[in-house]
């Protein structure tokens, strides 16, 4: 029934050669489909595409009597289909043939996942020295290990100590001029639930958030899936280095209103993803003024705040909000340790809001996605080890800076420019010179060629709703220095073969 079976499982089975040709065909099929969909709105009840549907198809039923196949809800149905965004297609594709510098030199190199492994050595050392102590708390009674300290129910929004630790940590990495009040903070199991919970609290089903584009493709899932809140892209241009302007926000808002859409807020990332811009204090001020004037919310996703390597200083929206000119209660911040501390597996997210009722509602919603107590204990220990954190953050920033330089230089040698960026784990690359046609179609063809010929997974701008074709996000913080010339060589070969 499934058209695309878990690729990894199949490839590791017997069907290698067959599947090896099947996969690119399937992917092309999906790309065509994706293009078709993007070009025009799909006709209602279109059944001509053979995507797997819910189990309500009666042809699958063998029993002759009246038992129907039981159905899932209509909001679940879209989830049953394989993802059609190139963002996910690329990630899945890498799993079928992942590059390994020793065992699989011809594999696909992953540049599509914003993760850093640059400072694992430091983290590993800390963990091996401190993890057991931070977890195995002593019992007051007999000095033996007291499991109740990690086993029992605790407030779902996080222990006070962990919120204090996060507040302190965030203040330090965001420049030290902003302080966070632990009682305005709610801890959750990842940036994904953090964004979704905020969406549930700030907007009703059918309302919308304005979002400067290009934007992180994951937001489509995180915001829209269950809340029913729409995302309205506010297009930014290379001429402004993809920085959002108030006039663009104005235009998007008035168009939305004309269509009858109710806009509840603006959501943006700072440092931005996928471009890697640091928003200036003036821009943040302007966004907040706009929100104040229109009486809407502002959600600032600051998950890359500690991954700043350029010369521009990072300023948190919390700092601007506290400057006294604004009604703070409309400002909400998202944070987490997946990027800055390279711990995506731990599932760490923070919702910080100046609105008492939002904090109160978010606390109650934490029962669906709270951080496990043992992980909280580890983080209390880790984040309060200020000496280690200082050492770590300095190394983290330096190593990203160095890797960024190497990567961007390598591309420059090939005549491929990048947008100016000062933060994040990626760069925003202008590959328009490699396009056969300066269009979305051309870009997706390049995406496929990069995947199947150059064997590189980079996220195309279309997946990020970028209005200018040819831009790709390349994440470089999981690469070793020696991987970079390999990548550049592959791109060079691809470029040469397309001009010939």
């Amino acid at each position, binding site marked *: 029934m499934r058209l695309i079976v878990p690729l990894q499982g199949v490839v590791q089975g017997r069907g290698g050669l067959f599947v090896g040709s099947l996969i690119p065909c399937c992917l092309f099929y999906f790309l065509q489909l994706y293009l078709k969909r993007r070009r025009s709105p799909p006709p209602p009840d279109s059944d001509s595409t053979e995507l797997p549907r*819910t*189990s309500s198809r009666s042809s699958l039923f063998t*029993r002759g009597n009246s*038992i*129907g196949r*039981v159905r*899932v*809800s209509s*909001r*679940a149905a879209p*989830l*049953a289909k394989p993802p059609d965004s190139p963002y996910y297609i690329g990630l899945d594709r890498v799993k079928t043939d992942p590059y390994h510098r020793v065992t699989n030199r011809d594999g696909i190199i992953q540049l599509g996942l914003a993760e850093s*492994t640059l400072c*694992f050595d430091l983290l*590993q050392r800390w*963990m*091996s020295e401190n*993890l*057991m102590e931070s977890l*195995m708390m002593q019992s007051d009674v007999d000095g033996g*290990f007291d*499991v*109740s300290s*990690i*086993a*029992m*129910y*605790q407030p779902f929004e996080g222990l006070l100590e962990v919120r204090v630790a996060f507040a302190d940590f965030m203040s330090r990495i965001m420049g030290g001029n902003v302080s966070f009040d632990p009682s305005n903070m709610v801890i959750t*199991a*990842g940036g*994904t*639930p953090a964004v979704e919970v905020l969406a*549930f*609290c*700030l907007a*009703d089903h059918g309302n919308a958030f304005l979002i400067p584009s290009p934007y992180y493709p994951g937001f489509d899932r995180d915001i829209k899936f*269950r809340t029913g809140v729409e995302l309205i892209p506010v297009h930014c241009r290379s001429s402004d280095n993809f920085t959002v302007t108030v006039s663009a926000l104005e235009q998007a808002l008035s168009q939305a209103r004309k269509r009858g859409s109710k806009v*509840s807020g603006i959501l943006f990332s700072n440092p931005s993803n996928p471009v890697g811009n640091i928003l200036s204090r003036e821009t943040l001020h302007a966004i907040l003024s706009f929100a104040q004037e*229109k*009486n809407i*919310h502002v959600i600032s996703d600051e998950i890359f705040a500690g991954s700043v390597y350029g010369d521009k200083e990072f300023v948190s929206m919390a700092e601007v909000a506290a400057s006294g000119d604004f*009604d703070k*209660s409309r400002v909400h911040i998202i944070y987490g340790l*997946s990027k800055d501390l390279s711990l*995506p*597996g*731990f*599932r760490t997210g923070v919702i910080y809001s100046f*609105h008492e*009722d*939002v904090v109160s*509602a978010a606390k*109650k919603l934490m*029962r*669906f*996605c709270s951080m*496990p*107590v*043992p*992980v909280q204990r580890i983080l209390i220990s880790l984040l309060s080890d200020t000496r280690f954190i200082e050492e770590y953050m300095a190394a983290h920033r330096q190593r990203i800076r160095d890797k960024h330089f190497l990567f961007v230089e390598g591309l420059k040698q090939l005549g491929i420019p990048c947008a100016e960026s000062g933060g994040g784990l990626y760069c925003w690359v202008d590959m328009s010179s490699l396009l056969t046609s300066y269009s979305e179609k051309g870009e997706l063809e390049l995406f496929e060629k990069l995947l199947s010929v150059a064997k590189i997974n980079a996220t195309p701008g279309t997946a990020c709703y970028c209005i200018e074709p040819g831009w790709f996000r390349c994440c470089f913080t999981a690469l070793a220095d020696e991987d970079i010339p390999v990548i550049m060589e592959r791109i060079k070969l691809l470029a040469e073969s397309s001009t010939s």
Partner: protein
Amino acid sequence: MGLPLMMERSSNNNNVVELSRVAVSDTHGEDSPYFAGWKAYDENPYEESHNPSGVIQMGLAENQVSFDLLESYLEKKNPEGSMWGSKGAPGFRENALFQDYHGLKSFRQAMASFMQQIRGGKARFDPDRIVLTAGATAANELLTFILADPNDALLVPTPYYPGFDRDLRWRTGVRIVPIHCDSSNHFQITPEALEQAYQTARDANIRVRGVLITNPSNPLGATVQKKVLEDLLDFCVRKNIHLVSDEIYSGSVFHASEFTSVAEIVENIDDVSVKERVHIVYSLSKDLGLPGFRVGTIYSYNDNVVRTARRMSSFTLVSSQTQQLLASMLSDEEFTEKYIRINRERLRRRYETIVEGLKKAGIECLKGNAGLFCWMNLGFLLDTKTKEGELALWDVILKELKLNISPGSSCHCSEYGWFRVCFANMSEKTLDIALKRIHEFMDRQSGF
């Protein structure tokens, strides 16, 4: 949902920014007595030495009776190994990066094997049908999102866990239609009650998408009979709806032979169209006493539901650290067999202690055989057999006896005077004190 309409705002006049219906709704239920008692406890918690006259928490179904078993396991086995898995510290790297919603295979295998062990091998669990969530609360909500649309309904037998009002309805917009059960047959679900609930929904033009039961039942503390399960499945097939069985207390049945899981019923069925409407929820919070770890699962016989739930679980993933730590513990069959056996025994003894103690005070309980609580009948003490009468008694018990117990009305029980009393979240000494307070109260009552 009965909230004021959202009005179009002009930009400058009323500058208070709006929140969503979900945010302002009181479906979280935290204003009900179930939670009010907790507040009283938080303000004045009983503590053996420092505050012996404080409120004893008997409203929280938490299992602390077997902590020593967990502690000795964690201390004895190579704890370093449990942290990182077989690779030792270098395994940290994968651990830190791992955020695949499929979950660690070794952990799913360990969960499947643990669930099988609890059922005495009478049903097999396929690790690939296990979807991990951050707790059973999340599992129940997730399943509700998947099986029902806003304004659809799930049928739930009363009395039921008060948290369902929030977990199944709050963000999902789905309704609960009660299946009324009463003491005439020990609160078991009857085919008539099922039909009646279904009809009630249809009459109100509400589409029913499934039945959700808890087996063993919370708050009853009793297993659901095999015949009832078969009737339930039959009903769901006839109406073409889903059957969700929350088996979170399956490892807390005092005598393993008395528990029949819906998995056993399904085990012998080949017809996919019957099987694929069945879904099981489980968690380590009650049986293993690890609610702080936030580990829940959805086990579904429906491929589509498994796939969808897996993707949706991005909103509620289990930390890789937790999966790693528990994978080794749960796959240690020698440990799990011993733990399950001793845990059952201790719960049974606690149950007998409390039921005996209550009997001596002249109080009867429903005959139970599972869980972390007993279902106590104080109907004879009510001034009036109404909700108000019950809540008045509850208030007296909270304020005078300083015992936080859960009134049946918060569990939507259609008979008044029943109370759920938890006994596994305290020491034996504390339980004695609670019983003493009840005795004294009953003596005072008969003194009138």
